[in-house]
């Protein structure tokens, strides 16, 4: 008797297990498109047949198909890819400002060529006021183009700073979500854990987009998130906030601090290397500063070289000693400050075409000296020509942008590769799940058959 009832029980556990598995399978199927969802399967184990137990089957655990090594690499891949993406907009802006194509406007390089060309034209008729005006307008256009390029660089820095401040807020949100999920997972490691872990993974990925992180999982399933510079951003249930603080030493741009749970601020501005924040910090504090300095040097060299020749010459009015450009006091800030000198602005007669005051108005020899600057090494401490010096600036931003463009492609590809590797392990395959459905349907039917058969056996026994 006891034997038959225990068979009934066994059949019951079979029904239960099959239903449970069906449940998991349908969860897998319905989440086929859920980002970050990890395929799972119930782990079945037999219940020991009698004696001692009643026999049958049970689902003892839900297994998530994850490859933790791959997940770590995925976080790193996300950081790289996001870093390259974040750099794109400021780099494009700076490139456009430093080397605009025709149609958008002259860039400082073409504007310089236009100035030399206007000066060469004036040679043939130094008293022609229209040609003189052309020289002045070419000079002021050159100054404006350099101003615009300096603005473009500043805008790129401003934009990077704006995004950095926003990202600090986002990072804080994700860190706090991760800590909260840690707490829930730690309190309840089995039942809801698969879904909570998937959720936490999404926040880890989002955090990795912002900043390079390393993740370690403890025995309770809680994670420690280690950020750039070895600071624990999240440790179990404990976390802090990421703050962007306006800093005077950074010229009003934000410094990034990690404020821990005790309210102590750790400066991490220089520790952040990866992710969008690392990339934006590099652009804001290194690359654009570098380009800005180069542009300042160019503006300074240019004004100094033109002024030296121009102020030695004589205008149509026989007056000498006038600068063509407002002489910048220092290299720093020269690109923003460069302008046509007030003594020549709006005064075409002031263009110093002559070297000999007695040769006015026909003497054009100072123009020869001015146009000769085109081929003289007057830039960068007398080592290269002005246009070559500007060429270096264009090359710098060009190479930087080009390498970032290929970085975007490369990092995008390798991230896609990693995602696809992860999918290979963790993704849901409808075909597989369909087979599972059939499989569990069959096992359910079979378990029901066991009960039915046992029932008949009991009937037979009853009718004896």
């Amino acid at each position, binding site marked *: 008797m006891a034997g038959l009832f225990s068979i009934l029980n066994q059949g019951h556990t079979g029904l239960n297990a099959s239903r449970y598995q069906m449940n998991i399978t349908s969860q897998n199927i319905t989440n*086929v498109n859920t980002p970050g969802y990890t*395929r799972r399967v119930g782990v079945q184990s037999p219940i020991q047949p009698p004696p001692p137990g009643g026999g049958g089957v049970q689902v003892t655990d839900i297994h998530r198909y994850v490859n933790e090594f791959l997940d770590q690499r995925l976080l790193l891949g996300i950081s790289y890819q996001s870093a390259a993406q974040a750099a794109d907009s400021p*780099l494009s802006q700076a*490139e*456009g400002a*430093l*080397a605009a*194509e025709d149609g958008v406007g002259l860039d400082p*390089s*073409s504007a*310089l*060529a*236009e100035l*030399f*060309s*206007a000066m*060469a*034209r004036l*040679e*043939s*008729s130094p*008293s*022609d006021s229209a040609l003189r005006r052309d020289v002045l307008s070419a000079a002021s256009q050159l100054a404006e183009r350099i101003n615009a390029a300096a603005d473009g660089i500043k805008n790129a820095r401003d934009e990077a700073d704006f995004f950095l401040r926003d990202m600090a807020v986002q990072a804080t949100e994700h860190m706090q979500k991760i800590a909260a999920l840690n707490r829930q997972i730690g309190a309840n490691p089995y039942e809801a854990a698969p879904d909570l872990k998937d959720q936490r993974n999404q926040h880890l990925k989002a955090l990795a987009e912002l900043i390079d992180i390393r993740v370690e999982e403890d025995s309770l399933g809680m994670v420690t998130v280690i950020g750039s510079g070895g600071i624990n951003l999240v440790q179990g249930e404990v976390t802090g906030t990421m703050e962007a603080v306006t800093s005077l030493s950074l010229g009003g741009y934000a410094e990034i601090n990690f404020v821990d749970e005790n309210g102590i601020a750790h400066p991490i501005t220089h520790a952040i290397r990866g992710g969008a924040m690392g990339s934006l910090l590099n652009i804001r504090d290194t690359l654009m500063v570098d380009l800005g300095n180069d542009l300042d040097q160019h503006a300074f060299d240019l004004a100094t070289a033109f002024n030296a020749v121009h102020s030695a010459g004589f205008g149509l009015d026989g007056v000498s000693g006038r600068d063509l450009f407002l002489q910048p006091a220092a290299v720093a800030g020269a690109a923003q400050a460069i302008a046509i000198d007030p003594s020549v602005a709006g005064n075409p007669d002031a263009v110093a075409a*002559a070297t000999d005051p*007695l*040769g*006015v*108005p*026909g*003497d*054009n020899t100072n123009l*020869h000296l001015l*146009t000769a600057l*085109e*081929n003289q090494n007057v830039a960068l401490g007398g080592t290269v020509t002005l*246009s070559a010096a500007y*060429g270096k600036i*264009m*090359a710098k*931003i*060009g*190479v930087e*942008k*080009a390498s970032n*463009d290929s970085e975007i492609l490369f990092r995008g590809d390798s991230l*896609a590769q990693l995602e*696809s590797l992860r*999918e*290979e*392990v*963790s*993704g*849901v*395959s*409808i*075909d*597989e799940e*369909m*087979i599972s459905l*059939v499989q569990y349907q069959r096992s359910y039917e079979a378990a029901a058959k066991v009960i039915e058969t046992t029932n008949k056996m009991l009937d037979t026994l009853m009718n004896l």
Partner: protein
Amino acid sequence: MRVSDTMLFTNSLQDSRRSRAAVLDSQQKLSSGLRVTAPSEDTSAYIKAKRLDDALKTSEAYLENIARAQSNLQTSEGVLGEANNILSRVKELAVQMANGVHEANGRAAAALEVVELRGTLIQIGNTKIGEEYLFAGNLTDTVPFDSAGVYHGDSNQRMVEVGSGLKVATNISGDTVFNAAGGVDVFAMLSDLETQLNNNDPDAIAALLDDVDIAINQVISGRSDLGNYINTAQVAESVVNRLNEDLSTEKSRLIDTDIMDSSSKMALNSQALEASLAAISRVMNISLINRL
């Protein structure tokens, strides 16, 4: 290898996206005609092209300078041709009047003609193009010769650049033609001639004949200088034009679209796109769902 459904979809999406981007890229290059529009697309080509562009801008200025120089030089040469005719007429008169057969009234009439010719010659010396006196040296706003024939210009020659390191003169100063150092002051000579004609002195007139020849030679040598400058300007023009062609060709080679290359790439990319779309539709249709 396990293939999950998401993998299938994202890979398909990525492949078709990449093919589409490639088609768009070659289409843009074809329609804009430019292969390189920013330094990042091909840094060294872009910067070389910029240099060529700078040189092309300077060349434009050279060509304008050459045109202006030629106009100045040709006008100068033309009016000096007139001056030559006038001095030939003067020589004719002087030779005639140095002959004893002429009467005093004939010489007086000749003197009147000489006065008139001298006036025309001063006008020639004061020829203007636009606001500039051609024969005033650098003092282009000063009337070079007053009615007494005194020169107020300077003896400078204006040079303009017509090529890298190549300059051509755009004028000759009035004094080299009409009042050359070691030569003859043409206007003073004409005044002398007038005086001697009025004095009815054939010997003194004959004595001026050498000076008339020297004056004619001064004008001729001025014209031949101008002719040389015009030649130089013409040579410079063809040099600059050829250089411009080379620069443009090189620039185009660096940054323009290679039509053949881009067209065939576009065809190739379009085919790749179609193939990948066909493959996607094939793969998407295969699923166990349809069979169970």
